[in-house]
């Protein structure tokens, strides 16, 4: 059994990122798109922590700490916007969000 190295973590991270990306492109519900965005952020965090571990530096973990904080703020704001929009239009479907269409 080979030793699990940096490459394995990075490949898992890339796969996770691609799953999130596919979800953002394919799904049509704003909430699901939001969850997929979270998956993509987590994939980035995983890559950062892996790099930080295999280079013996601590900076990556501090960056992940900031990413998690900002993601929490972003989720709170985004969900507030979704709720406000839902009150207006009674829908969370992206196909209905055409009011800014030219």
């Amino acid at each position, binding site marked *: 059994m080979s030793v699990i*190295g940096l490459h394995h973590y990075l490949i898992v991270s890339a796969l996770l990122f*691609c799953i999130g990306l596919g979800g953002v492109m394919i799904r049509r519900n704003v909430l699901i798109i939001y969850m997929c965005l979270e998956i993509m952020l987590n994939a980035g965090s995983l890559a950062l922590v892996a790099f930080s571990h295999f280079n013996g530096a601590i900076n990556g973990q501090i960056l992940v700490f900031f990413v998690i904080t900002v993601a929490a703020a972003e989720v709170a704001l985004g969900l507030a916007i979704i709720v406000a929009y839902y009150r207006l239009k009674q829908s969370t479907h992206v196909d209905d969000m055409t009011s800014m269409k030219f």
Partner: protein
Amino acid sequence: MLFCALMVVINRNPVASALCLVVSLIMLAGLFTTLNALFIAVVQVLVYAGAVMVLFLFIVMLLDIKTEIRRRLNFLAVAACFVAVIGIFYKMYQGIASIPVSRGPVPHATVDVKLLGTELFRNYLLPFEITSLILLVALIGVVHLCKKEETL
């Protein structure tokens, strides 16, 4: 973990999708512990799997989103998305493969909270303060968004 993440995308029911995301995030925290990042793992479970996902589930249930009816998918668009994702993953894989194999894991003590905190408050004090400001702005923004809808 990847399977759970895939289920988030595939599942038609938003509640089941959110629960799959919780499982996926907790598994990711486990992966962090294998990388000796214990503090990050704990923060991941507390903030993501705890606070953020409770918020998600709360909103899903508040808005009472039904299971999506089976819309006719645009198969051309789905196929295009699939090809694009595969292409992006291929480029990523090329990039990862071009990284030279390091000489095994660096002898690396477990990053404990003390070390992390010292580093955070010594070299990263300004970003830390800016983060607190971001949280404050988000708080005020959310309150404002919810308040305005009520008065309108």
